[in-house]
């Protein structure tokens, strides 16, 4: 670490050599290299954060440039994560920067989060915000949230120790809200939001000041007015690994009518569940026993999973996919529907 570079911040009694070392050891993952990400990323790197990951599957477009200042006109069409990586690596060579040229999904979130200490939610999608929240709860990582609506932004820090999560504020996704592209935004508004996020990240690692936990800060840049709203942390023990896969795992679905002759129909219900089914190429292996019996299932033929309502079949899908089975499907119909289908056939 080139200490002289950071001498002006080391001079602060709240930082010092020790604080700088803490920043150097910190690993931060930024989800989204859009308006917020473009404000957060350069200042994370310039403060001497040791390792930064950038997750974005999008490409630079002309209408991004007014607020996403890491990008030039010559970058249009290039992957945002790659361009940000090149720009930041050249300017801050001592920071370990990694570009993940993909969108965050239920498939990659937990694996990505495992390599970092703190997550920055710099997305413009409410659906991804719930994914970030739930992946952070499962992997016990704190995350800094910001979002923008026209001339207002909000910032909050979630899941620090036992502090509240985004679901304590908004338990379930809303029916409809606009993003920047639809609502319009000034570059300064989104940049201010991003800098507040970055500031919370630095405070967290330096362990100084008061973090925005169990409260949300709302700023109106037209009035220069700040409001803070407290909320009560709620129980989030329902965010389990099973809940996560059920919510975010994308499964390949197919209908019972499309089942191939040589395919295996895998029933993951418990043995005493009704209706009992009498069909060809049928195997009952309860979800609770599936993990220990994966070797018994042939990899050669397609596998069609079902259960009673479709929840357990999604978890079974995940287990089988991890075993690198290519031809795995969840059936759209489950036991009660299949029972009707085969009864009418007779």
């Amino acid at each position, binding site marked *: 670490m080139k200490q002289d570079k950071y001498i002006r911040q080391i001079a602060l009694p709240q930082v010092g050599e020790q604080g700088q070392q803490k920043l150097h050891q910190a690993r931060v993952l930024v989800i989204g290299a859009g*308006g917020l990400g473009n404000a957060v990323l350069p200042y994370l790197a310039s403060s001497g954060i040791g390792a930064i990951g950038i997750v974005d599957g999008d490409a630079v477009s002309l209408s991004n440039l007014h607020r996403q200042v890491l990008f030039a006109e010559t970058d249009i069409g290039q992957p945002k994560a790659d361009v940000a990586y090149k720009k930041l690596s050249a300017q801050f060579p001592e920071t370990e920067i990694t570009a993940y040229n993909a969108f965050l999904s239920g498939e990659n979130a937990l694996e990505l989060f495992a390599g970092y200490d703190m997550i920055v939610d710099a997305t413009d999608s409410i659906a991804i915000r719930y994914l970030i929240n739930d992946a952070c709860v499962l992997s016990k990582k704190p995350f800094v949230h910001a979002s923008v609506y026209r001339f207002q932004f909000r910032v909050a820090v979630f899941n620090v120790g036992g502090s509240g999560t985004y679901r304590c504020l908004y338990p379930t996704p809303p029916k409809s809200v606009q993003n920047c592209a639809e*609502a319009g935004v000034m570059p300064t508004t989104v940049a201010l939001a991003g800098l507040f996020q970055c500031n919370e990240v630095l405070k967290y690692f330096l362990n100084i000041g008061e973090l925005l936990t169990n409260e949300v800060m*709302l700023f109106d840049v037209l009035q220069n007015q700040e409001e803070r709203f407290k*909320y009560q942390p709620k129980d989030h023990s329902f965010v389990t690994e099973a809940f996560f896969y059920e919510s975010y795992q994308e499964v390949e679905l197919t209908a019972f009518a499309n089942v191939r002759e040589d395919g295996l129909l895998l029933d993951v219900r418990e043995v005493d569940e009704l209706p009992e089914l009498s069909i060809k190429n049928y195997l009952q292996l309860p979800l609770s026993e599936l993990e220990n019996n994966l070797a018994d299932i042939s990899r050669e033929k397609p596998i069609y999973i079902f259960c009673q309502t479709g929840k357990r079949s999604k978890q079974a899908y995940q287990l089988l996919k991890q075993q690198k089975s290519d031809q795995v499907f969840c059936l759209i119909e489950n036991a009660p529907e299949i029972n009707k289908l085969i009864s009418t056939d007779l």
Partner: protein
Amino acid sequence: MQIQYFGEIAEITNSTSEEVALKELTLEGLKSYLVTTYKMQMEDIRIAINHEIVTDASNVDLKETDKVAILSPFAGG
């Protein structure tokens, strides 16, 4: 009572704040005002009374001097 509107919800109310005389000075009375006047979806907004977001579903009495804020989620970034 003064009600402030933050985010997208201010587009529905056409103002960022207003002075309202509620028929019934309770949380339920406030909700019914928001639903009947603006057709707000209660599950999509949060109500803060004196800067504390109400998460408890129980009805509470309000005071004329209470500062009420209505918050909707922001999506942009």
